[in-house]
């Protein structure tokens, strides 16, 4: 007997609804197993988590607080991922945004009209984030340097640099760490509890990006590049220019997230500005299938998971590690579930090689260098490896597609390894 994934003939509307719900159910079940093993009552735990996140105004505003940086970095990441630029540097871009915004707010406030400081600080955050993403973009566009490495490395540079600033160079006297508080006129106004106006910026950018993706030439070109870079080149679309422009915007949005945290929440540059938002953003962008409006929704849920997760320790008296593992357990089925939107599971009895072959190109076509062998039924071929003779499943992260189907985990060739 053999399990086999088959590509769906079309993206079914039903699957689009049923799959996430089923995934969520499986998530809760997985989590429940962990909780039982840890000696906690799953129902109580889930109720406590829901209560922590949604059961009070304070909880809700805290969810908003957390969702602001997640929305912004999620949007920044989703934008870059649209064209399959694997920007995993949102963390660094956020951090540099925070550094720049704090720098401007702290040190430019003399000699400048007070009202200019807030917009200038936000702008500085954007620029710093853009620069931080722009460097890997330029390296990729003109020297083809792998962006996953450069963006990741720059994260460390940014985080360590910011530590240097708040522990050493900009440290306020009498403080172990952290800068002076930024002047009040540079604060981003708060709207409820600690939730600040950054939420409006996030929502506005989400709507804007949604429109860009749908209604602009730029968005159209991004989608083509993301779905098939070879075709983009052939269609006269400059990939290099798009990489640079897109990443500047992507970085700017993440930089804004950092600026928002400093100007709206901590009001000083200090430790804990980012608790891995830039990395969570990757999960968010992915789960939202790179849809900007989806990012808002998923970011909100992730924020709720984090805020509600406090209760695992506070009320359920479980160690912090259980909370972290639980969050992971809840996420994995959700992520894995996305594969079932595009593939359906089939169970067959025979050891069936045939099914595996069918997804494969008639190899005779491989004889020609021109044919970048992927059969029509496996979907567009982009950067596909042609050496598939061993039948190993080549997992590729795919995005592209319409709003409904952009981004999901796809395996290049089905079937197990030989």
């Amino acid at each position, binding site marked *: 007997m053999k399990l086999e994934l088959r590509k769906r003939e079309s993206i079914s509307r039903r699957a689009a609804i049923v799959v996430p719900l089923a995934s969520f159910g499986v998530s809760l079940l997985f989590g429940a197993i962990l909780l039982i093993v840890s000696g906690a009552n799953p129902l109580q735990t889930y109720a*406590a988590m829901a209560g922590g996140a949604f059961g009070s105004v304070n909880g809700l505003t805290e969810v908003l607080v957390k969702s602001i940086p997640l929305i912004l970095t999620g949007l920044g990441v989703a934008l870059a991922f649209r064209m399959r630029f694997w920007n995993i540097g949102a963390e660094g871009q956020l951090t540099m945004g925070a550094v720049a915004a704090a720098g401007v707010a702290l040190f430019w406030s003399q000699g400048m009209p007070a009202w200019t400081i807030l917009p200038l600080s936000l702008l500085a955050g954007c620029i710093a984030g853009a620069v931080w993403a722009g460097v890997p973009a330029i390296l990729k566009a003109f020297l083809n340097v792998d962006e996953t490495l450069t963006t990741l490395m720059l994260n460390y540079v940014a985080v360590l640099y910011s530590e240097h600033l708040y522990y050493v160079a900009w440290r306020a006297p009498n403080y172990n760490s952290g800068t002076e508080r930024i002047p009040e006129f540079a604060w981003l106004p708060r709207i409820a509890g600690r939730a600040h106006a950054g939420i409006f910026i996030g929502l506005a950018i989400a709507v804007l990006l949604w429109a860009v993706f749908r209604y602009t030439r730029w968005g159209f070109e991004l989608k083509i590049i993301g779905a098939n870079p070879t075709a983009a080149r052939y269609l006269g679309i400059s990939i290099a220019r798009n990489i640079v422009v897109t990443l500047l915007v992507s970085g700017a949005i993440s930089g804004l997230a950092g600026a928002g945290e400093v100007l709206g929440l901590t009001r000083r540059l200090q430790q804990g500005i980012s608790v891995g938002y830039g990395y969570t953003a990757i999960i968010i962008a992915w789960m939202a299938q790179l849809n900007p409006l989806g990012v808002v929704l998923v970011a909100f849920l992730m924020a709720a998971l984090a805020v509600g997760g406090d209760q695992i*320790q506070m009320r359920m008296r479980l160690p912090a590690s259980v909370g972290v593992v639980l969050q992971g357990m809840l996420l994995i089925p959700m992520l894995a579930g996305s594969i079932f939107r595009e593939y359906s599971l089939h169970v067959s009895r025979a050891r069936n090689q045939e099914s595996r072959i069918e997804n494969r190109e008639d190899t005779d076509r491989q004889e020609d260098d021109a044919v970048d062998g992927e059969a029509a039924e496996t979907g567009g071929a982009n950067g596909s490896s042609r050496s598939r003779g061993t039948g190993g499943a080549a997992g590729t992260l795919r995005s592209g597609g319409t709003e409904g189907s952009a981004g999901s985990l796809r395996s290049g060739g089905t079937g197990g390894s030989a």
Partner: protein
Amino acid sequence: MKKRVLAVVALALVMSMALTACGTGAKESEGPFKVALVYIGPPGDLGWTYEHDRGRKAVEAEFGDDVETTYIESVEEGPDAARVIRQYAQEGYDMIFATSFGYMDPMFEVAEEFPDVIFEHCSGYKTLDNMGTYFGRIYQPRYLAGLVAGSMTEVNNIGYVAAFPIPEVIRGINAFTLGVRDANPEATVTVVWTNTWYDPVKEREAAIALLDAGVDIVTQHQDTTEPQKAAQERGALSIGYDSDMRAFVGDTVLTSPMWNWETYYIDTIRQAMDGKWETHQYWGGLSDGVVKLAEFSPKVPQDVRDLVADAQKAIIDDDDIFCGPINAQDGSVLVAEGACMDDAGKLSMMVFVEGVVGTIPAQ
């Protein structure tokens, strides 16, 4: 005003959630005195947080059913801490302890909002009528440990894995170095910075770097036992910190300047329960027992033990260690002969004393 109303509604909501969810029927008015602690690391760090948690357990043992304690571990300094502290305040905890410097502002912010809850912040300096601070003069046992190290180094070079270039850490390095030099004027203390409080890998690497550079005793200011283990693996000696690390590593740990919060926690909670709590800035030393030197390893010879015992007696008899003459690292006079540094000076100390090899990153 509106905010207050919302908060009350929120509180009611949370409580009803708690009631329905847990079904335990939490008794709000006549229940035990509820205490929460916010930890920077896990209690299993065998160092800083371990000692605070030992204090918490002592409280539970002392008061039994009259006090209910809880804690949340590994809370990032910064925005997340404010959320957690507020959550405890909202859930009706009577007293909240926050055990890292970075929790100061978040706690201050929440304390302003909840005047009926008592807040205690460890190692900071901001106070309110309902927020006090507490810390210990760990530099005193550090000086004693320095005496041990200075007496026992064979290469006259001791390694110090330092956390962050802040007064608290610099004070510790200086006190330790004064001890080393009092026992052995030839010896120096080499400092490397990790910029971490709790990063076992980095701290181990830093210790190895020092051992490679030729030191034969290692000590540190972070919350892990990794430098001690690294030293042991290299056949070198070490001085612990935070807790009695000899218990976790072995006899190569000669001794440890350690925290001992049991008495403080029991006392301050008792005051709060009795309604006698008042805001304070507590900075206790060896005389209070809030800091102490752990028991010696069998490797420490009797003459060294005697030296330490004499010095400890002198400190308890109010003879501070930061008394002149003390030269700064560059040879200039830091504390003149006959003078002693006041607490303000100690709390803002940003220069090394003579005998330290290393630099404080420029500000």
